[in-house]
């Protein structure tokens, strides 16, 4: 499979504090990369660099072989843990936003036939994430899970080359989280997405990902802990999930019988969505 995103010798430093050092990564098209690591290991910094929200201090990032512009753009979609939908727009208008920006540079609003087409496309996208019945609700009227579904629909309508997820399910309760896992897996398959997801939840990282990256510091200076940055200390390719089989055995093997019991609870909680 071809390399879609390539990080070459990427360093991120804030003043004399080194967050990421010498990160070299190749991410293949169609992969689902989970990034885990302790707090402060630069998971979110890595995501921000790929997103273009931050410029790396050193190193290059190539998307399809061309260097990334140091600015966010429609080739990279994102879903944050919170605040990624617009509170003043209904679900439908939130989803149409990306289409309106593209086709109406001046007014950012569509009229007539173009509006109808955009509405149809947005409706289809909302149906795909299971929000077909809630198109006219405002985000404040939705539960946390519905808001994250909306954020995903909003991002996917632009058909981004890469979808970046920054702890997207961290604020959701377990039953709804299991629903969201099923949803994102289905979307990843149906739309042939390339996904990079930062998460705290190791089980989530292994259930969803085709590859798990663990970020941490390789070296540690007890007198100046900030002088060494984190990098990918483990890079675990998992079984290709595209054949439809889940890696349930692997997860249970990796995280012990306790996790298996938790998963049982999650499944019982699915109905609460």
């Amino acid at each position, binding site marked *: 499979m071809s390399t879609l995103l390539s990080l070459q010798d990427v360093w991120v430093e804030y003043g004399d504090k080194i967050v990421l050092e010498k990160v070299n990564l190749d991410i293949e098209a169609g992969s689902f990369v989970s990034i885990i690591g302790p707090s402060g290991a630069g998971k979110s910094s890595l995501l921000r660099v790929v*997103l273009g*929200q931050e410029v790396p201090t050193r190193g290059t990032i190539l998307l399809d072989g061309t260097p990334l512009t140091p*600015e*966010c*753009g*429609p080739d*990279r*979609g*994102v879903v*944050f843990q*919170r*605040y*990624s*939908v*617009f*509170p*003043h*727009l209904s679900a439908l208008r939130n989803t149409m*936003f*990306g289409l*309106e*920006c*593209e086709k109406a*540079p*001046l*007014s*950012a609003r569509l009229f007539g036939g173009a509006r109808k087409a955009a509405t149809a496309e947005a409706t289809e996208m909302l149906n795909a994430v299971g929000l077909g019945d809630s198109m006219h609700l*405002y*985000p*404040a*009227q*939705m*539960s946390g899970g519905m808001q994250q579904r909306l*954020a995903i629909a*909003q*991002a996917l309508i*632009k058909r*981004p080359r890469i979808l970046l997820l920054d702890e997207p399910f961290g604020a959701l309760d377990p039953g709804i989280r299991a629903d969201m896992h099923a949803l994102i897996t289905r979307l990843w398959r149906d739309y042939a997405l390339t996904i990079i997801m930062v998460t705290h939840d190791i089980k989530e990282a292994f259930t969803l990902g085709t590859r798990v990256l663990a970020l941490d510091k390789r070296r540690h200076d007890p007198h100046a802990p900030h002088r060494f940055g984190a990098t990918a200390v483990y890079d675990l390719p998992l079984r290709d999930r595209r054949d439809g089989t889940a890696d349930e055995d692997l997860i249970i093997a990796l995280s012990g019988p306790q996790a298996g019991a938790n998963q049982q609870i999650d499944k019982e909680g699915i109905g609460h969505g």
Partner: protein
Amino acid sequence: MRWVNRHVRQGNRILLGSLPIVLLVLLYLVLAAQRHAVNPMDKILPLPGSMAEGMAALLFQADRLTGQLVFWADTLASLQRLGLGLGIATLSALLVGLLLGVLPPVRATFGPLVTAIAVIPPIALLPILFIALGLGETAKVALIVIGIAPVMVRDITAHVADLPREQIVKAQTLGASSWQIMIRVALPQAMPRLLHAVRLSLGPAWVFLISAEAIASDVGLGYRIFLVRRYLSMDVIIPYVAWIAVLAIAMDLALVFLSRRLFPWAHGVSH
């Protein structure tokens, strides 16, 4: 039961809210009656009867000099100045606030200037305005604008700049330009805040209006109050002040209604 947990029902709330007002009115009437018992000609605390008499002349009899009904001419002139001042201040607050809030380079350039203007006491500028703009309507409207616009600009700027970073990033990943972020993300979310800022500015706006009218004018609610003060005409001053209060409350309620009607998403629409 703790007092923090005692919630008052809607009907009782109106009752409780009007209680202090009724008590104050009663207190005034008692004091006025006492003074009138001692001196029937007392002008300091007029009874409702003499207020009605004093106001009737202004309400229904045309002024011999101008041919206008004085009370209504005053109201119209004041509301016009206030409306113009509020309108100009609101529009400029929206425009400048958006530019400053959304675009960091603009904020870095003009932020300090706005702050500097905001800390100048507007009344200190009144002589400059009268000298520069004459004693006409322009100076009075300008005083209101200068008095309230900087605070509103700072409020809108802060509100827009405090929009979650995630939203701005998300908009960019959806292909939005600076302009599109300004009109589709920042502007709609600034609007409820703007109406709120107008509500808070109503008080200061009235202060600047009355000040300007008191110093140089020939018509207006503030002018009338300061004119009849010379004759100790409390029977006119008190109804005028009450009328100003009624107008201010009506404007405030209208703004609340408008905000709820136009921006339901900003007023905690429930699940």
